[in-house]
């Protein structure tokens, strides 16, 4: 699969660069059509191969999601009808359906369409909405959606997320944070394996700052996924699996994955990581978080003592930092007195570029980078126009 796919993809890339119009115009020709067919077969094969490590998971609505959503009606708090409030807060798993709110689209609106919401105790979130619906009829190799084979879902099972089988012990990583108490009484989370068989998993732990949850099934089905250790190179061909239903779509990695939301596969079937509209958590970072969850049931992240904010591609502060260029960074907004950051001399306004030699470009990657740190750790910091190294004594939480 890999031997044939890579050169074929190279040809495809050249064709795309050369103009998809020509491709479309000639699609009816025997040579191009046969090549398209071959590429479609390869793309579909890659998707099927990926399915062997994918579970369909039914997670309850996380409480933080509800708090995040309820902020939209906060202004009506004092006059909200009690029954309506109850429905919004408790029955939120039943959606208010509106045509524009749930397109199953992989592309995003411009960043100006995003908004931020601060949830007390939960940090600040930004929402990027899918914009357009991808044509179902498009060839897979040209970005058409690939759907998992239809399966008859047992009554009461409505999967809303996917999980990656990590190992033979049955650990399954779900790209969504959910509080333990949101699961209610009982140990079971319902899920279906790659073979379609319904099973249950126990909750191992969840990490809010990387937005990951770890489950474990007793008898795993399928093959564990292979996790990569770096983000795709710009221009690389990748497959993005939607986290909600596992639908796949081939695309070219660009703008740091600003258009992608899902599990990113490389053309050799490896899981490069999880993309969320410009945020990216590598496979190895996912592995690190999973290990912590297995070992402690939570991530024992050292406390740095800062309020920190991701500088996104469209943020104004970037304009005041020409030296930053297009590079992403984390900006320290506040340093807590007598904290490790304070003692190390970090200041508000400093831009953190790397932790322990690992580049940090967004909040999840920062959260993962300090997850397993203990003791003196070197931070690469941009202050003004000077890049400096600062040693911080991180103390891992007990």
């Amino acid at each position: 699969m890999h031997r044939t796919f890579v050169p074929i993809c190279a040809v495809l890339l050249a064709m795309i660069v050369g103009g998809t119009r020509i491709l479309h115009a000639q699609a009816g020709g025997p040579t191009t059509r046969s090549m398209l067919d071959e590429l479609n077969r390869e793309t579909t094969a890659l998707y099927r191969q990926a399915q062997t490590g994918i579970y369909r998971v039914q997670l309850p609505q996380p409480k933080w999601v509800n708090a995040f959503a309820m902020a939209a009606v906060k202004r009506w708090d004092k006059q909200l009808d009690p029954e309506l409030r109850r429905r919004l807060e408790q029955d939120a798993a039943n959606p208010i359906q509106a045509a524009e709110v749930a397109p199953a689209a992989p592309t995003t609106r411009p960043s100006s369409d995003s908004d931020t919401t601060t949830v007390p105790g939960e940090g600040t979130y930004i929402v990027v909405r899918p914009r357009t619906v991808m044509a179902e009829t498009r060839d897979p190799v040209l970005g058409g959606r690939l759907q998992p084979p239809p399966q008859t879902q047992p009554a009461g099972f409505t999967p809303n997320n996917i999980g990656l089988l990590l190992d033979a012990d049955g650990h399954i990583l779900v790209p969504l944070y959910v509080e333990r108490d949101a699961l209610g009484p009982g140990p079971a989370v319902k899920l279906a394996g790659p073979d379609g068989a319904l099973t249950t998993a126990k909750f191992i732990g969840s990490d809010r700052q990387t937005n990951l949850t770890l489950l474990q099934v007793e008898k795993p089905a399928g093959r564990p996924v292979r996790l990569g250790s770096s983000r795709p190179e710009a221009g690389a061909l990748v497959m993005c699996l939607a986290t909600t239903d596992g639908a796949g779509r081939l695309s070219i990695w660009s703008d740091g994955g600003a258009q992608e939301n899902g599990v990113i596969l490389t053309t050799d079937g490896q899981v490069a990581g999880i993309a969320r509209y410009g945020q990216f958590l590598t496979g190895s970072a996912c592995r690190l978080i999973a290990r912590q969850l297995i070992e402690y049931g939570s991530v024992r992240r050292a406390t740095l003592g800062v309020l920190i904010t991701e500088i996104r591609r469209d943020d104004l502060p970037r304009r005041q930092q020409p030296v930053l260029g297009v590079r992403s960074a984390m900006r320290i907004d506040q340093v807590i007195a007598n904290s490790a950051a304070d003692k190390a001399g970090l200041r508000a306004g400093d831009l953190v570029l790397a932790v322990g030699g690992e580049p940090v470009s967004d909040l999840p990657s920062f959260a993962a980078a300090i997850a397993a740190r203990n003791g003196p750790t070197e931070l690469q910091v941009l202050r003004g126009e000077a890049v400096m190294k600062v040693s911080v004594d991180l103390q891992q939480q007990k």
Partner: protein
Amino acid sequence: MNAIGEFDLQLLEDYLDDALSPAQVEHVARRLADEPELALAMHELRAARVLRAATWRTLEPSEAEAADVARRVATVVRRTERMGHLWRRAWVGGGIAAAVGVFVAGWLLHGPVDSAVHQPQARETTPTPVPSPTAIAIRQPAVAAFHVALLDSQGNVIPVQKFSKADDARQFAQDLMTYEDRRQEAQQGGAMLVSDRF
């Protein structure tokens, strides 16, 4: 947010609008870095700039749908008025709302749909399949009560929120859609944590 004065709020608005001079931008950026309260206010201001128009543009009922929703909402309101909370027990699950209806209850018993309260282009669009998001605005000048109702996927009316002003009702309906928008996006991984304490 509370500690931020009007002047600073305006300054932030101008900052977001890119309406400041380079020197002012530099000043605000420096303050944003130094003042967490101001930085949080900035986040909240951005949140307040959610696209609002989209909601009403997409709440596009056909005449038949609007009339049907109005009839069902009226039924529920009558029942509510007569029997208190009895109607709540009648609700039988399914997905929450397929629609948000804004109406004046008193008028519903007799009158037609008032297009003046509704965006004109909404009536010119192709009806969407049921269940569809529906917004209707029906007015009875003599009765100053506006309701926002949620309808489930079977068309049953579930909780109704009462308002004395139409603008409030509209705004609430819009906020409900934002609520749903955020809820679904967050569940689908579209909500990203961008700022936190470490």
